[in-house]
């Protein structure tokens, strides 16, 4: 019976219009920083990880939550401070080991351990329990209504594999450590790792045991991922057919790609804001020319810098219209964003100079700006533009542009005075921004906050957000925190990115605000 069914299916497949399947060559400016799924909370790192590993749930194209390794989830009827997740059955890891609740407990504990860069997302978690082979309970400090939305980038590893390969500890990437988990991968995802040469080439192939066979398109059989930092080389690779898909079409080449027969441009507003960070907390700065004082500690200097920036010029010339200038470090997708916060500060060089003079820096000062050159759209050009704008108020900026693999450790280690950073918000909620970027840097939170800012009152308000169940009260608290952040000019927001994917027309894959292609959905017709 089964055999004849299979035979019929095979015959049918032969007659029906054949479904295309094949490899996909994918390029973007920068590589994933590590394969360790909990070591670095960074977009391109997660994008590669999403092909190999899976979280309990993911976001769909519209930002809603979709089951992945969990099939359903709900607060416990007995205790609102507990979330119950029912897990998918019959899932195996790529090495053949079975997936169960022990792996989830292990992975979530790993993700909230000290070295993890994902721990802010689980800061409200106080305990994890496996209540059955396919059921897990997550205990939070008070009821946390938004916890499921925090889990979309927390990947599940195989506990036995991690223990057997000395990968229980999260890789210490900022100290330059290279661990087994950073160079090997074993997830439950649709693609498994074939080979990886960091910054050169990563090859993935379809996982034959994937649970989603039959559910997802899975027409991409193999993935060859190549980082191409140079924008001209990257777009040339797409135009000549050397690659099928580039995730970041240079803004100057949008028309060229759109006009090319057989290629398509896919654009979407991105859930990512680009801004400058200022080390206001250090008693003295390493890179400045003022002895014994930190000029950035003076709010007037930060305000002067904020209004010296001409965001419209950056949008028009550097970004060629592919950005949305903003006055707050939250994209409009985020709960807590308001049009009032978003209002772009008017450029006013005269007032900026007056503020500098009142702060005692009428002659300006010198400082170094650390900038990545392979992460965000035209990141280095944005920094160069800022050098010119800040020079007009007497701040002499020495620009140090380098690959993100060298840039991000400066932020993690707090060894930068002035830096460019972009922040995507996978939870679509302000709490994520506060936890990583505003909260004082301590064991649990503030890992991406290199400003040295510390405000215990504000910290308490941020921590309280996780257990506030009254959504109106929670939103009021969020608004209150944003008021403080804006009044302090903690960061200098620049713009929200517009993402532009370029692909061969046969690749069926829509752009999403997370800038996260999931190739299991892709079709090749």
């Amino acid at each position: 019976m089964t055999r004849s069914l299979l035979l019929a299916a095979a015959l049918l497949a032969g007659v029906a219009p054949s479904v295309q399947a094949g490899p996909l060559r994918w390029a973007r400016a920068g590589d994933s920083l590590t394969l360790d799924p909990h070591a670095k909370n960074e977009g391109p790192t997660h994008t590669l990880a999403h092909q190999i590993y899976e979280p309990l749930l993911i976001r769909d194209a519209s930002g809603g939550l979709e089951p992945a390794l969990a099939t359903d989830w709900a607060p416990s009827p007995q205790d609102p401070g507990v979330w119950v997740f029912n897990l998918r059955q019959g899932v195996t890891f790529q090495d053949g080991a079975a997936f169960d609740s022990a792996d989830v407990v292990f992975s979530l504990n790993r993700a909230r351990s000290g070295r993890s860069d994902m721990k802010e997302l689980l800061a409200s978690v106080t305990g994890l329990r496996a209540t059955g082979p396919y059921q897990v309970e997550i205990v939070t400090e008070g009821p946390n209504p938004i916890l499921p939305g925090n889990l979309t980038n927390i990947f599940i590893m195989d506990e036995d594999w991690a223990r057997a390969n000395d990968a229980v500890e999260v890789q210490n990437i900022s100290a330059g450590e290279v661990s087994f988990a950073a160079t090997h991968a074993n997830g439950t995802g649709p693609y498994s790792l074939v080979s990886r040469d960091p910054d050169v080439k990563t090859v993935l192939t379809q996982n034959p045991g994937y649970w989603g066979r039959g559910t997802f398109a899975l027409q991409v059989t193999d993935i060859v991922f190549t980082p191409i930092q140079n924008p001209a080389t990257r777009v040339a690779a797409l135009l000549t057919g050397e690659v099928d898909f580039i995730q970041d079409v240079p803004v100057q080449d949008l028309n060229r790609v759109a006009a090319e027969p057989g290629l398509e441009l896919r654009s979407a507003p991105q859930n990512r804001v680009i801004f400058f960070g200022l080390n206001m907390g250090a008693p003295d700065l390493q890179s400045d020319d003022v002895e014994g004082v930190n000029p950035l500690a003076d709010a007037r200097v930060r305000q002067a810098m904020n209004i010296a920036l001409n965001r419209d010029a950056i949008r028009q010339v550097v970004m060629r219209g592919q950005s949305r200038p903003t006055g707050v470090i939250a994209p409009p997708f985020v709960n807590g964003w308001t049009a009032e916060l978003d209002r772009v500060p008017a450029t006013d060089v005269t007032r900026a100079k007056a503020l500098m003079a009142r702060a005692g820096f009428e002659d300006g000062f010198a400082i170094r700006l650390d900038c990545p050159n392979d992460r965000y759209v035209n990141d280095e050009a944005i920094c160069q533009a800022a050098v010119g704008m800040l020079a007009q108020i007497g701040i002499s900026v020495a620009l140090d542009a380098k690959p993100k693999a060298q840039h991000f450790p400066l932020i993690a280690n707090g060894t930068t005075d002035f830096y460019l950073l972009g922040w995507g918000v996978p939870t679509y909620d302000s709490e994520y921004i506060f936890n990583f970027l505003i909260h004082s840097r301590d064991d649990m939170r503030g890992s991406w906050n290199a400003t040295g800012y510390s405000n215990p009152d504000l910290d308490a308000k941020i921590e309280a957000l996780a257990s506030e169940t009254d959504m109106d009260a929670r939103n009021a608290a969020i608004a209150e925190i944003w008021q403080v952040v804006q009044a302090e000019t903690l960061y200098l927001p620049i713009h929200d990115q517009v993402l532009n994917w370029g692909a061969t027309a046969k690749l069926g894959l829509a752009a999403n605000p997370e800038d996260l292609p999931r190739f299991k959905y892709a079709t090749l017709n």
Partner: protein
Amino acid sequence: MMGRAADGAIGRGQSLARTPRALLSLGVLAGLVLAAIGAPLLAPHDPFDPATLDLMNGFTAPMTHNPYTGDLFWLGADDQGRDVFSAILFGLRISLFVGMSAVALAAMLGVSLGLLAGYLGGWVDGLTMRAADVQLTFPAILVAMLIFGVAKGITPVAYRDEMAIWVLILAIGLSDWVPFARVVRGAAMVEASRDYVLAARLSGRSGPAIMLRHILPNVLSPVLVIATIGLAQAIVTEATLSFLGIGAPPTQPSLGTLIRTGQSYLFSGEWWILAFPAATLLALALAVNLLGDWLRDRLNPVLQ
């Protein structure tokens, strides 16, 4: 043979006049060098002062008025609104300065080692020439990249930009000494066995004195040829390193740095950001090379 002609060959003005190609090269080179020297006077803008830049001037085409600011740029403006003409003048300065200093360093090193090896012979000769052989097996650009990387690694971050130019000179100079050493060694060996050197030795002159006063002047003319061709090479090596993003920093752009910026805008039609610096580099390298060729022919007794 080649050494003796040194005094007479160089200054023959008529010969140069009778070679239009060489004359043209000399003219182009002289023009470029003068433009580089006079850059602060000639350039309409100071490309090193970021306070004078207006981002809204970005991507202004050559000889057109910017629609927002109304500014006009002869050779257009780059992505940051920098005047391409001024950037080329200042870039030329850095390219020529790095090229000449690197060749001077390479020549000093190569000539000294070659003289020692040729005059002393023995293990000094063996050691120097084996070192030269080893270095020749690597392309000069790789050696330069290696030296540049190591030097950049040991310079404190704060001084990196200021040091970049000197590191560049060191890297190119150290990777280019071999041709000098080889030629000088050969010539020095020939000279060392001549009667006048023997006479000097018998009259009790010291080794260093014989090398510097007697042998050196007689081996200099091939050095001049190598130096000229080496200058073209050094300029191109510097441009290559800067193009790869490991040479002159963006705050002190050389021609290679300008070409690196410009090539991002080739597909989008902003050709002037790349074309003008590239044409300048081509003219410079070609002029120096043709001049070197002419010099080689002039100093070659066989071709006289």
